């Protein structure tokens, strides 16, 4: 079965081609079915491969397809790698991808771009699969930029809207900044090791042939790529804007899969990070800073998707914090649980938006519990899971991360813990404001409130089960239970650092985390449920500090002022002044000088014979003089 790994990306590719070429002629039912079943087929193959891989002693299989780029030493085959990491990501991508495709059949039903939507979505899955399946960095890069393209297309899916188009362009351009770092990293890897295929690179790196500085440089360049794709400071600003895309896109691309590509990349390259303290510390600090920063913004947002977007940025930061602390398998664990509960939350939010006729402002919702029972119940599970309440999945992955960070650095642990507290608070704030209290929308909206169709609620239920039970993948060792995911990934972690914490410390940390979450939730309950306090309805009613945070610390405005505007100014100056006036001025000036000089010489042609003879004699005299002396 592993030999047939090519089928996994092939199915979505076929779906993409069918919907792309003849999708408009197909009925919506057929178009959606092609889109969904191509992913289901991939999921089935992925599952079989996963099972086969678990049963086999060899944990890493390379499948070569064809030679792609070849230039001297630089040989880049188009080949796939099946190992525990890629197999796990395959399941997440195709599994959650399938659920979201099914959900989209319902969600996008009224949209005129229905088949186009599935075309893009299938193409996205294709590239995402390439990203995790590639056996060398350049194939990862192919998927990496490919998902960026699909993200661009899907953010700007409703292309008549200029704001959405701007968001799409912003996402692509910011990602390209990261991609340049990634590309240079790949090139440096090549010139250091003479290969870019994972197995060979890691083997050589392990022998220590590369200088410490080179390893650090590689790790940091790759991390620049990760900052772009996984929305870390300073390249995170595109992700909240990316919420312009249809909600299933936010769930699949901007929560569950694409944005975790940076984590995948670092786990894949873990050897570089475990060899370089500088790089690891950078990753940890950037992760912690992003986690806290985004969480504070999430506290005051009023758009339901924006809350979730900042929560995603924050959770990604937490994963990078884990990576920086060397807890690679914990980060992957959190990728998985986060994929469950965040996809669930986004799809739930989509269901709410669907019922509210497109309304996304939580200040205009309320009391949706009754009208949307399934959405309410499943979102409750998602909210509890992300807040870190046992025994839901988020609790286990988050706790594991924080324990590892505590070993490495107490300050970062503290930041991570505060972030978790804030997370629990703003998630329950959103939850209470949406589902409890009084309905604050229009009468018309109230009249139309309805639970979503089966195609949408069934994926919600499946994801809710996963979000609730997903923690079994990584039960804590100190409970005497088996941490499956840590064992599962251990073959590809190069430097392991087993926990040195005593069981007592672990228990205390865990208790603290749960208590902190409980306090947060109780506070949110008090404010938004019991006392029914609403966020300020208008910006003018906000305090200065709150307004500043509401405006995301004005970071976008800052970038506009220090990057976009100067770039435009430089461009204008280069064009209007430097190019047209100076460079071309010199060229034209040369031409004019020739003209002027010719005018001058022309005057010699007087037509006067006497003058010519005089000139001739003068010439002869001059020649005589020069040849004499």
């Amino acid at each position: 079965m592993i030999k047939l790994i090519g089928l996994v990306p092939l199915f979505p590719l076929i779906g993409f081609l069918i919907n792309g070429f003849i999708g408009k002629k197909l009925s919506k039912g057929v178009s959606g079915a092609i889109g969904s079943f191509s992913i289901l087929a991939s999921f089935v193959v992925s599952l079989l491969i996963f099972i086969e891989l678990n049963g086999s002693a060899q944990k890493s299989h390379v499948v070569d397809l064809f030679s792609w780029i070849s230039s001297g030493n630089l040989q880049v085959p188009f080949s796939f790698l099946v190992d525990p990491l890629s197999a796990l990501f395959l399941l997440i991508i195709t599994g959650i991808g399938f659920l979201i495709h099914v959900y989209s059949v319902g969600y996008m039903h009224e949209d005129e771009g229905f088949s186009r939507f599935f075309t893009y979505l299938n193409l996205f899955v294709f590239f995402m699969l390439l990203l995790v399946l590639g056996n060398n960095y350049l194939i990862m890069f192919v998927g990496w930029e490919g998902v960026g393209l699909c993200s661009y297309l899907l953010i700007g899916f409703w292309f008549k809207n200029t704001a959405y188009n701007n968001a799409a362009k912003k996402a692509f351009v910011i990602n390209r900044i990261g991609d340049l770092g990634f590309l240079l990293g790949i090139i440096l890897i090549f010139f250091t090791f003479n290969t870019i295929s994972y197995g060979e690179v890691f083997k050589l790196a392990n022998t220590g042939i590369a200088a410490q500085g080179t390893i650090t440089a590689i790790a940091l360049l790759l991390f620049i790529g990760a900052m772009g794709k996984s929305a870390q400071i300073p390249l995170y600003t595109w992700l909240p804007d990316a919420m312009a895309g249809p909600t299933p896109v936010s769930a699949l691309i901007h929560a569950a899969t694409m944005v975790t590509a940076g984590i995948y990349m670092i786990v894949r390259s873990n050897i570089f990070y475990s060899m370089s303290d500088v790089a690891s510390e950078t990753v940890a600090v950037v992760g912690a800073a992003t986690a806290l920063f985004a969480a504070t913004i999430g506290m005051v947002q009023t758009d339901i998707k924006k809350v979730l977007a900042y929560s995603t940025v924050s959770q990604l930061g937490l994963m990078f914090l884990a990576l920086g602390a060397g807890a690679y398998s914990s980060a992957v664990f959190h990728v998985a649980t986060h994929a469950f509960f965040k996809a669930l939350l986004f799809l739930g939010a989509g269901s709410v938006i669907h019922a509210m006729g497109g309304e996304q402002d939580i200040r205009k919702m309320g009391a949706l519990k009754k009208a949307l029972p399934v959405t309410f119940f499943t979102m409750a599970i998602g909210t509890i899971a992300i807040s870190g309440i046992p025994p839901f999945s988020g609790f286990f992955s988050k706790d594991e991360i924080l324990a590892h960070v505590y070993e490495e650095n107490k300050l970062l642990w503290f930041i991570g813990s505060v972030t978790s507290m804030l997370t629990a608070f703003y998630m329950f704030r959103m939850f209470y404001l949406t589902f409890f209290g009084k309905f604050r929308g229009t009468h018309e909206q109230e009249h139309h409130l309805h639970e979503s169709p089966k195609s949408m609620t069934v994926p919600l239920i499946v994801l809710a089960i996963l979000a609730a039970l997903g923690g079994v993948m990584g039960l804590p060792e100190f409970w005497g239970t088996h941490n499956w995911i840590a064992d599962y990934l251990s073959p590809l972690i190069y430097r392991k650092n087993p926990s040195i914490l005593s069981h007592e410390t672990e228990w205390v940390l865990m208790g603290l985390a749960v208590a902190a979450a409980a306090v947060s939730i109780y506070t949110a309950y008090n404010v938004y449920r019991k006392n029914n306090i609403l966020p300020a309805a208008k910006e003018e009613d906000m305090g200065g500090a709150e307004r500043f945070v509401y405006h995301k610390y004005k970071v976008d405005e800052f970038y506009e002022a220090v990057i976009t505007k100067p770039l435009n100014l430089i461009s204008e100056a280069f064009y209007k002044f430097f190019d047209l006036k100076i460079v071309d001025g010199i060229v034209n000036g040369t031409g004019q000088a020739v003209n002027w000089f010719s005018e001058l010489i022309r005057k010699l042609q007087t037509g006067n014979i006497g003058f010519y003879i005089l000139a001739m004699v003068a010439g002869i005299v001059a020649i005589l003089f020069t040849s004499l002396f």
Partner: protein
Amino acid sequence: MLTGLLIIFPLIAAILVFLTKGKTARNAALVLSVLEFIISLLVFYQFKHNPGAKELLLNCTWIESLGIKFAVGIDGISLLMVMLTTFLVPLIILSSYKNEYDKPNSFYGLILLMQMALVGVFIANDGFLFYIFWELALIPIYFICLLWGGEDRGRITFKFFVYTLLGSLFMLVGLVFLYQHTGGATGIKSWALNDLYAAGKNLSLYQQSFVFWSIFVAFAIKMPIFPFHTWQPDTYVTAPTQGTMLLSGIMLKMGTFGLIKWLMPIVPLALAKWGNTAMMMSVFGIIYASCIAIAQKDYKRLIAYSSIAHVGLIAAGILAFNQQGLQGAVIQMLGHGVNVVGLFLIADILFRHTGTRNIDSLGGIRNVNPQFAVLFLIVLLGSVALPLTNGFVGEFLLISGIYKYGAWTAAIAGLSVILGAVYMLRSYQNIMLGEVKTSTAGFGELAKSDKAVLIIVCAAIIAFGVYPKPLNDVTEPAVKALLENLK
């Protein structure tokens, strides 16, 4: 023989087309240029199976007293340049089907004449012959721009002509200087490429520097790279679309090709001394032209500046002078040729359908013609070098090659990856996305000929992006041989 046919056939075709009248001219030109493409396929086939075959060589005495020979031959690099030419010319002719040109027999005859000269430049093995073809290529394009161009064509075409001619004269001086130094052992002077190589290596640094700059300037103007580029935007904008395609798709490759084959191997010492200066010019030009492209409103002018940026990257890759840089340059020359023809056709389509190329007056075309939107997007992605398009393979190798030269140089050159996305996506958004405007409401369907060209261009973009092996197979050994030669 076969290579002789490559040159003679377009000449005969040009004469035949000159003799036709009216609309037959373009059909005849199209058929004949396709035949030329088939001949080049035969050459390709022959080269793949027996690169040393006699059919690929031609070596006749021409002017004995001066050691000038009509010598042509094919290596991997020239083969691909010939293929690019013979592939693009039929597309360029087809792209003109919706434009009504006066005196079509002259117009298409000149295109074919130009093709002859271009093929000649790429396969000449004799310095004098190379120069003759080089200058010969300028004449048809001069008339194409002068007679069928747009506003202010007289002044602009004159500037273009004088500027490039001036460069060529410098080159002639350099070549004559080299010729004078051939025949060191035998006393028999020769223009043969290999003899020029040998002559160049024996020159002092001072002499090499003279040769380097006199020839480099000619190539730098032709490409063009900063600061020799100011003839280019005006000429590209004013020339008829087919003229612009010839200039950007094929003719500028004369400069990069010349750099690889007719300069770098000749003057190794000068290269070591002046290569850095030339590299700085190229790399600065990349950023400079990319920034200027951001400020453009006229879509045709925007592509013109983006072309300067792209060619700057190619030149930098060549100047890095290593396997990846050179190979990337050759592959990117092909990629850029195909993409830029697509882009200029898009500019032409926009103008024909709406009467403007100003990106601010356009918008929302996607609503009216989604198919065009998709084709446009694919060409754009090729141009911003997205992986799995033809642009990426070349660009990755180029940046790798430049990295070997210097990490920071590569980082700065790599900024074009970001800036390219900025101006390309901005223009795409302004032209295609958003609500329909009055200028674009009546955009309508694409003409069949336009659609055919765009589909072929898009197919090439994806095919060579996914499976560039045929290009690798030809370029890899050719570049290896070139580098071996220098050792």
